[in-house]
């Protein structure tokens, strides 16, 4: 009987495969899209002849396209490469009635290099990059703990650092040379806001705002990357300890603690992990592990204190209390105590939770259809109704929803008017 089912299924899959190919674009189109996306080089200034030729070709192509589309001969391409906030059925920028913070929230719109926006409740999102200061898409915005700066990963492996004033205005953007590989990197700030750290492959790179660089490598154990995928750039995979003495790193080889004195890095736990988050007292870590599971680890001896099933979002520890937020297997947003008790469902549907600096609220994402998402906020004690920070942000068809590392909540509360 099993053989019979298998045979029928094989035949069915073969037929379905043929149907799939009928609807697929050509390989040329796919490779061209890829090349367009992966080549961040600025356009060179062409000579006069190429300009004239290009103008003529564009004119002909435009006329041809109008005729072809009008006659139904050509389908418009699916890729829309200019994602931007747009209105949806949900009203934008309407914070919850209990909104406690007027802090800025930085977000990049898609997975990987994307436009960067800054928003605060009751204001329109402001595009920060690409701009005159930083002309490219970026990854992983991260506010410094003192709230004065915003760091972003840049296309050529450098880190952009911008000053942000109280009104959310950007000034004095500059690049930190990381000496890392030419891919965008996600950074973690030192608690005193004096430096950033990033993961370059299996090396940990620390760059001070003064430009001094330190590269710590040779500590990781080569892990067979077949059983545990890691996205790139690493997303919430490193975090500085609250006392600034060490950095926790999530790797396919396990969870590592890299001290910043001259002592050797230590593997705390051998389970492959993709994210780390410190408890406020610095005694424990909650890590996102293969499964996916959330493991609470004792930093002193690497013991697993608690193990919980989660969805694919990184679990995050409240910055002020013994509470951990994560998206569960059904994409419900929950908050629990570190021992797994006191489970509180904040909302039935939400992922990539980010705590507010005061621990009173959680920022999270919801899909809006298949090609857009919205930014939500809810009280972390489950009270009141969730509110919408940004109504809907469209993503292009060949891109993915932004991972958790594409969001950052500014740590400093603004003074009340």
């Amino acid at each position, binding site marked *: *009987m*099993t053989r019979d*089912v*298998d045979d*029928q*299924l*094989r035949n*069915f*899959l*073969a037929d*379905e*495969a*043929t*149907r*799939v*190919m009928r*609807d*697929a*674009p050509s*390989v040329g189109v*796919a*490779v061209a*899209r*890829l090349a367009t*996306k*992966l080549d961040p080089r600025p356009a060179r200034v062409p000579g006069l002849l190429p300009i004239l030729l290009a103008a003529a070709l564009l004119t002909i192509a435009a006329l041809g396209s109008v005729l072809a589309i009008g006659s139904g001969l050509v389908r418009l391409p*699916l890729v829309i490469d200019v994602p931007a906030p747009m209105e949806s059925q949900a009203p934008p920028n309407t914070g919850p009635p209990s909104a406690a913070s007027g802090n800025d929230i930085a977000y990049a719109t898609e997975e*990987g290099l994307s436009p960067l926006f800054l928003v605060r409740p009751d204001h329109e999102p402001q595009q920060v990059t690409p701009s005159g200061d930083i002309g490219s898409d970026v990854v992983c915005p991260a506010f410094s703990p003192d709230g004065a700066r915003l760091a972003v990963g840049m296309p050529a492996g450098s880190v952009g650092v911008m000053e942000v004033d109280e009104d959310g205005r950007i000034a004095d953007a500059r690049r930190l040379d990381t000496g890392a*590989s030419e*891919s965008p990197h996600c950074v973690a700030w030192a608690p005193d806001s004096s430096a950033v750290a990033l993961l370059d*492959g299996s090396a940990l790179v620390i760059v001070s705002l003064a430009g001094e660089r330190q590269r710590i490598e040779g500590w990781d154990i080569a892990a067979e*990357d*077949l*059983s*545990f*995928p890691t*996205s*790139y750039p690493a997303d919430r995979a490193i975090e500085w300890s609250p006392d600034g003495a060490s950095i926790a790193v999530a790797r396919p080889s396990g969870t590592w603690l890299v001290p910043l004195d001259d002592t050797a890095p230590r593997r705390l736990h051998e389970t492959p992990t993709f994210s780390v988050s410190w408890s406020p007292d610095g005694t424990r870590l909650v890590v996102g592990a*293969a499964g996916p599971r959330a493991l609470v680890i004792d930093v002193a001896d690497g013991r697993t204190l608690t193990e919980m099933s989660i969805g*694919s979002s990184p679990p995050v520890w409240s910055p002020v209390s013994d509470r951990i937020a994560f998206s569960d297997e*059904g*994409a419900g947003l929950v908050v629990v105590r570190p021992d797994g008790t006191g489970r509180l469902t904040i909302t*039935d*549907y939400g*992922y990539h939770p980010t705590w507010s600096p005061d621990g009173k609220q959680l920022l999270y994402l*919801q*899909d809006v*259809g*298949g090609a857009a998402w919205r930014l939500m906020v809810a009280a972390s004690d489950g009270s009141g109704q969730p509110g919408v920070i940004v109504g809907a942000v469209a993503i292009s*068809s*060949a*891109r*993915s*929803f932004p991972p958790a590392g594409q969001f950052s909540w500014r740590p400093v509360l603004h003074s009340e008017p």
Partner: protein
Amino acid sequence: MSLMGSTMNPMPAPPSELALTETSSLEDQLTDFFGAHYDRMTRLAGLICHEGVSAEDAVQAAMEQAWRRRASLVDRSRMRWWLDRIVVREAIRLNRRRLWTRFTSSPENHEAALPLADRAQEMTGQRIALAAAFRALPVEQRAVCVLHLYLGYSVPEAAQLTGATLETTRSRLRLARRRLRAELTEDES
């Protein structure tokens, strides 16, 4: 760039068939590989994806992932296997997001995502039942079925490709077969 024709060759190729040499650059090899295996990758993603999730998106995202992570490819003779793993996981990831969307989207959207009736004229009754049952499988079970029964990977290989344990993979295959068998039996009766 040489392109594979439309002839279907779903079985995994032995390393010697890949014609990869250490002399050409990894970028060139990867580009050629995209061209040669694009159809196969699209079929793989398309069979795993539920209706409403674009196989094209999954393949595009996988190609981007592969390109960005090409330095992690240690053994170039395993490029096909490596690429399949990325495609499978991208397809599963996109489908999970799709499922999350379905939890909260309107009933109209659910109906729009299930245009099976549109294709009913092409299929017999039992084939319709099989199609509906296969579509109703969780995406992880679909992936294991496609990898094992269509692409010919062994169950341990399918486990590695999907990032699941061997026991989980066996269990997914067993559950998928049980569900499909039940649907087919019900249709016959």
